[in-house]
Structure formats: structure tokens, C-alpha cells
């Protein structure tokens, strides 16, 4: 089964749940396990939250673009904002690094550990684009081969 859903969400906190659910519904159309769908939800939640709070500084009048594509048993998720961007991506992606003292700096870690691949592109002042992929059943494969 192949599917693509592209959604533009107002940058309000409530839409993080909408994004999560949308990704979960598309993933559920393939052979992802319940645990894998939960991992996808977490990764999407982190990426869309970042776009809303970091990208747009929690201002509600902007748009977060989410693209969820299913190629047979591989899911690709794109999360894009046209917000402030990231100066030092390598630094931002490190655990416990956050520009907000009330946050944990675990967002990128969770995206990385719960998906098979993570790519971040960002231009300061222009915006950020996060691309993540996950194969259905990849966990079990990894475990089975001991990798």
C-alpha cells in the first residue's frame, strides 16, 4: 500500500496531537507494530513541537508543514517550518542541549532513537526541515541479526 498525506497546520500547540495522530493513522495502514507506531508518534511529536515552539517562538499565526508518505513498508516523515532556523545543527542535536532552560534537549535524541534515519536541514532566519524514515519491522530485524 502506498499513501501520501500532506498537511499544513497552524502553529498552535493543539496541532501537535493532530500531527501525531495523522502520522499514526498512515503508519497503521502498513505493517508497523503498535510499538513502532508509538515510536513514530513520539518522533513526530518532538519534531512538530520544535517547529511550534522553537521555530515560531510559540506564535500561533504560522504554518507547520507535515508530509507523511508510505512506500510499501517504509514511512517517510517531513516536518518543515519557516521559522527562525538553527545556527549550529550539530550542537542542537546533542542530548541535553536546549535553548530553553525549561526543556530537556531530548527532542532530537528521541527522533534519532525511534526512527531509522534522521536528517536536519536549517537556514537561520529561513526555517528548518526534518526528514525521518522508518521501516516496518526494522526493530525485530535489528534484534534478530544482533545489530
Amino acid at each position, binding site marked *: 500500500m502506498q499513501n501520501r498525506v500532506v498537511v499544513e497546520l497552524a502553529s498552535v500547540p493543539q496541532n501537535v*496531537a493532530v500531527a*501525531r495522530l495523522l502520522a499514526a493513522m498512515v503508519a497503521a495502514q502498513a505493517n508497523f507494530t503498535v510499538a513502532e507506531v508509538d515510536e513514530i508518534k513520539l518522533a513526530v511529536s518532538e519534531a512538530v513541537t520544535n517547529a511550534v515552539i522553537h521555530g515560531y517562538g510559540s506564535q500561533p499565526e504560522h504554518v507547520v508543514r507535515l508530509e507523511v508518505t508510505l512506500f510499501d513498508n517504509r514511512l517517510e516523515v517531513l516536518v518543515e517550518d519557516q521559522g527562525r532556523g538553527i545556527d549550529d545543527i550539530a550542537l542542537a542535536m546533542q542530548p541535553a542541549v536546549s535553548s530553553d532552560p525549561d526543556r530537556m534537549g531530548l527532542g532530537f535524541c528521541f527522533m534519532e532513537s525511534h526512527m531509522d534515519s534522521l536528517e536536519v536541514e536549517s537556514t537561520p532566519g529561513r526555517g528548518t526541515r526534518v526528514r525521518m524514515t522508518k521501516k516496518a519491522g526494522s526493530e525485530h530485524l535489528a534484534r534478530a541479526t544482533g545489530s
Partner: protein
Amino acid sequence: MTMEHLTVGASLVTRLTGELDLVAAAEFRRLADDLLDRRKVRHLVVNLERVTFLDSSFLGALLGRYKRLRMEGGRMVLVGTPPTVRPTLEAAGIYAILREVPSESEALSGA
């Protein structure tokens, strides 16, 4: 997400249901801080039994309250983490610093 709160003596018991993200984080932070500010409570008991999802925004709110309580001599205890959200809390090292007990009564009676 829904939150149910009750105060038992000096403890605030918060029963959380559903998906906990930045929206729940803001609500939890606001309520807990308000009650702590007004000296209504000193300890927090967070019941996660019916939580189906929890992300780093909510983890941040949880740890933020924990830090505050530690400075003010209060305690924070978790009750009933479901298996689906346990890995997320573990990854954040929550169990290294927070105590978890099986029931609210133990949390309230507790040590």
C-alpha cells in the same frame, strides 16, 4: 488528555489520562506551580496509570517540578507507569531520581 487533581494533606495527587505533550505540560506546570506558590501543597504524587503517550515536553514539565520540590524540601512520587511510556521515562533517566510506587496510598503513606 484529562487531568484530575485532589489534595490530600500536604500532597497534590494528579491523575493523568491520555496523551501528554506540550499542552498537558503547560497545564500541569501552571497548576502545580500555582498550588506550590500558594503553599497549598508540598509534595506531588503523579499517577500515570492511564497515560497512553508522553513526550519530552511533558518530561520537562515533570522534571521542572521535581527540581523545584527538591529545593523546597518537598517530594515527588510516580504511580503506575504503563509499559508503553516506561521506555521514554527511562531514556530520560527519570527513575534514577524519582521514586515509583504501585499505588497512590503507598505514595501518600510513604517514607
